[in-house]
């Protein structure tokens, strides 16, 4: 019965082909540094899942943002765990993505034909930093508020268009309710959507070209 269902689905979806392409593809000789991309993907998914659950109780308004996080941390069952994973996972993701990038650089894996994988990866790194930047404001405590004041001021010193960038980031001249809601929107919709799409492209390129072997003495 199960076999028949599986066969029916496989004929239409092609599980077996997918399995071969995704998990059974040939790999160069193993190296733990090569697992950092998978680790980054895992962390992205973990941040996505814990983030989705945090939105169940979080309220992105100056009146309630801080209180709603206090509520998550102190009153909701396992709220401390979900938020803790999201909080520490965020730092870990920036770290792992960065080390992944360094490994790619040092093993020269960015070279032909993988230049596009590298470029997409660079954008993914910047988007990851963007997630950290927008997520930092959301607790709306003193540290979050002043960190955002300082960080958006950095955008404000760009010659010529600085003041405009500052207002565009903040949604006005001050860090306010508008800043919080636009950071929230960027943090849960825009940046994750861009990340998910580019991760898809990144993975497609990796499957298309296979993983690079480490250069040996002859290279």
């Amino acid at each position, binding site marked *: 019965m199960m076999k028949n269902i599986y066969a029916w689905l496989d004929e239409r979806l092609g599980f077996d082909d997918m399995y071969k392409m995704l998990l059974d593809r040939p790999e160069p000789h193993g190296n733990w540094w090569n697992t950092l991309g998978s680790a980054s993907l895992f962390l992205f998914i973990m941040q996505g899942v814990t983030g989705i*659950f945090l939105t169940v109780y979080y309220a992105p308004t100056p009146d309630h943002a801080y*209180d709603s996080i206090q509520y998550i941390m102190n009153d909701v*069952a*396992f*709220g401390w765990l*979900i938020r803790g994973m999201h909080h520490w996972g965020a730092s870990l993701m920036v770290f792992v993505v960065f080390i992944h990038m360094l490994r790619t650089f040092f093993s020269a894996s960015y070279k032909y034909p993988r230049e596009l994988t590298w470029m997409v990866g660079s954008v993914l790194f910047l988007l990851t930093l963007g997630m950290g930047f927008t997520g930092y404001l959301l607790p709306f405590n003193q540290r979050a508020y002043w960190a955002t004041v300082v960080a958006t001021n950095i955008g404000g010193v760009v010659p010529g268009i600085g003041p405009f960038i500052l207002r565009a980031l903040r949604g006005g001249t001050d860090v306010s309710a508008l800043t919080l809601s636009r950071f929230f929107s960027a943090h849960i919709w825009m940046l994750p959507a861009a990340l998910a799409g580019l991760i898809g492209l990144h993975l497609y390129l990796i499957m298309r070209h296979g993983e690079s072997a480490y250069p040996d003495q002859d290279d």
Partner: protein
Amino acid sequence: MASSHRISRRDFVKAVTATLSGVMGIAMGIPIISYLIDPALNVQSSEAWIPLGPLDGYPIGTPTAFSFTRSNINGWEKTVNSYGGFILRKSESESDILALSNRCTHLSCSVNWNEEREEYVCPCHDAQFDIEGEVNAGPPPHALDHFETKVEEGTLSVKFPAVLAHEG
């Protein structure tokens, strides 16, 4: 396979992966479900006895207004609602007390005691209730709600929330 007791490396990796996935699934599944249903499990009772001061402060035979507020905490949000009513002492007896809610049973406006007409009058749609809270005239579907009362060491208390006139 040479011997049925031997397990291939591939099968071992499969078994370990499946086991670890299962452990992780349970380790995360239980917290996540608890997290989601938590507010449904913490039902706080809103019942409470509200002290209204010494019984001596309430005259016999005349409805005397009282009011109190109750705060309600839902997550991070606190709402404060005002409630009010009238104490009517029918005699000296501590059990002979009628505590009516001032919430009109029509559309919840606050009724007032009208001394001359000897009835409660609602300012919204001119509903009229007699001194016992029964409907005299107007649109209300039933009599005014009342509070249970008790007197302890000379202090009058009412039990929140108010109940339907013909209950309790």
